[in-house]
């Protein structure tokens, strides 16, 4: 923000009092202040506390208190004990993101190019699930996938599932819940970037001997990449940290790392392990996002 004072155009500054430039700079800082305060209070302080907690002496307890001993071993212990739910989280998150991408792309494409006057209504419908609580929506999936529900019944009738087969408490249910819950986060950025594509570009590709399918992969898809990248990030990051879906629709065998962290914090009171696991998850995601954005060639998003 320091540059604001510097770039005050001389033409404009000349007839005004000489302190205008400085006042402009001060206004900039003042405007920044609420945001900065917010970040310090709700990001920097908790983050510092999380990092510190992850390095506490693991032998501490609520009764004896905790000591800061730079116990890096917490990380090794947490990884050694909980690598399964951690990997499972990334895996479920990735599959759900892939499903969201396929479903969301078709939906966003239809809204952007084919919906005509129904465009706004369809966008509202995409967001409409947010009008009810996340928990209620996930619980209703429990009803849909219930053992005596019509989905399981139909699948059993079609011999896809065995007579005692079920969907609840399986990875299928957890991934289905994740896909459903995070679909809008995929659709909206995809729509935003598809809607910006000039339909004449598609016409031009067709005029230049590109079959519609080829035209899609050579023109529409590359131009929608910013939406694909931000959509997959907005879906993958919360989906892999989510624990509600695994808890409500899965069994302990589908436990995800979010659930582990939550129970470490609230049930086991093992704060150092919970904090270390949180840090691992965060660092893993940051590294993956950086690599992904680099490879997709959409650095301007960062």
């Amino acid at each position, binding site marked *: 923000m320091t540059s604001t004072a510097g770039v005050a155009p001389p033409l404009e500054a000349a007839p005004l009092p000489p302190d205008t430039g400085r006042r402009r700079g001060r206004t900039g800082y003042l405007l920044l202040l609420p945001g900065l305060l917010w970040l310090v209070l709700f990001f920097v302080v908790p983050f510092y506390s999380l990092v510190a907690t992850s390095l506490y002496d693991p032998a501490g307890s609520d009764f004896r208190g905790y000591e800061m001993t730079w116990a890096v071993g917490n990380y090794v212990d947490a990884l050694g004990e909980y690598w399964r739910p951690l990997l499972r989280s990334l895996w479920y998150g990735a599959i759900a993101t892939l499903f969201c991408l396929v479903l969301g792309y078709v939906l966003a494409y239809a809204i952007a190019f084919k919906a005509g006057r129904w465009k706004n209504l369809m966008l509202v419908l995409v967001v409409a699930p947010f009008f009810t609580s996340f928990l209620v929506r996930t619980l209703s999936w429990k009803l849909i996938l219930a053992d005596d529900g019509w989905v399981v019944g139909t699948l059993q009738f079609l011999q896809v599932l065995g007579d005692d087969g079920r969907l609840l408490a399986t990875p299928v249910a957890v991934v289905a819940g994740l896909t459903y819950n995070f679909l809008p986060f995929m659709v909206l950025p995809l729509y935003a970037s598809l809607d910006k594509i*000039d339909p*004449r*570009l598609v*016409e*031009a*590709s*067709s*005029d*230049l*001997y*590109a*079959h*519609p399918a*080829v*035209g899609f992969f*050579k*023109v529409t898809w*590359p*131009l929608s990449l910013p939406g694909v990248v931000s959509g997959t990030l907005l879906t993958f990051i919360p989906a892999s940290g989510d624990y509600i879906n695994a808890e409500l629709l899965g069994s302990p065998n589908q436990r995800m790392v979010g659930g582990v962290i939550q129970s470490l914090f609230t049930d086991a009171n093992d704060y150092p392990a919970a904090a270390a696991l949180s840090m691992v998850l965060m660092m893993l995601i940051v590294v993956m996002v950086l690599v992904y954005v680099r490879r997709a060639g959409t650095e301007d998003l960062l």
Partner: protein
Amino acid sequence: MSQVAETPTSPEHPPAAAHGDHAAYDGLRLRDVTKEFPGGFTAVRSLDLDVPRGSFFALLGPSGCGKTTTLRMVAGLETPTSGSITLAGQDITYAKPYRRPVNTVFQSYALFPHLDIFENVAFGLRRRKTKDVDAKVREMLELVELTSQARKRPAQLSGGQQQRVALARALINNPEVLLLDEPLGALDLKLRRSMQIEVKRIQVEVGRTFVHVTHDQEEAMTMADTVAVMNGGVIEQMGAPAELYENPRSTFVANFLGQSNLIEGRVLRRAADVTTVEMHGIEVSVPSPRVHTDADAGWVGIRPEKVLVGRPGEELDAPGNTIPGGVVSDVSFVGVSTQYLVRMPWGQELQVFSQNTGRTHMFTQGESVELSWRPEYAFLLDRSQDADAGAAERVGG
């Protein structure tokens, strides 16, 4: 209402009966093409058009006249409601756009923003898996003088450069017909003039059929061999630019293509060579081939630069039609010429452009004058047509 150019290739009328000899015609041929959009709007009405191979053809008309729709039907981006389109004897009415030997230079170019200039130009070749893409693209970039910009993105180029990329991207495919949809509309006047000459030069060089859509009559006349003036989904008149300008057949063409004075008149006598018309009590003659009405009432038309202005009784170099009793009501000096408005005894104001040769007298407002013109420059149009048709839609001078 459709008209066919007076070219030897289109003798048949009505066109529906002419399917037999399509194979013989090697240009672009539209027969009885109609396009109705959902909602009942008819953009193009039973249009017949012959574009000879290798010609530079302009579709000229105000916005909404159906010229762009016609172009899009040739490109395959719209499907005609009825009628047929043939190209070099092949019926392409329903062919997919990516299967036609036709390429388009789009209005505002539609360059692919994610590809560099080289890849934009190579796009068509790559889709057809052509060999020697590199050499061909380089050659084409040289033709449009953009070799040094090959690795830039479209957004980094100026409007004129983008226009040349769009032209190169279409031309490199060596299309049977190149369609240009108002390609110069986004450029400023000076650049537009130089691009007009440039595009014309390239057309002569590659010798392909160009179909150019524009609403700018000067652009159409500068560039095209043949101009078709479109209005309300039909072709009003078609021919060489000079022919259209000198001998318009409708009030729309007379006003849209340049300016015209249209004076109410009544036919007195019709002879093989000369038709005599009474015009507010004055007898004037019009060559019979320039009479475009069978009715008795008509509009006598004369271009402002063909009208001579002189003092009452002065001898003017215009044997034939002399109209006395005018009063100069407005004078504007524009350098190369002086433009007068002359109020006639019957109340109408006529436009007169007097070339600044240095030997003519400059009249001032309020002076009494006499107008005259050579009879061979006059034309007679149908009285039932609107005398102001096309005047409001005209752009530029």
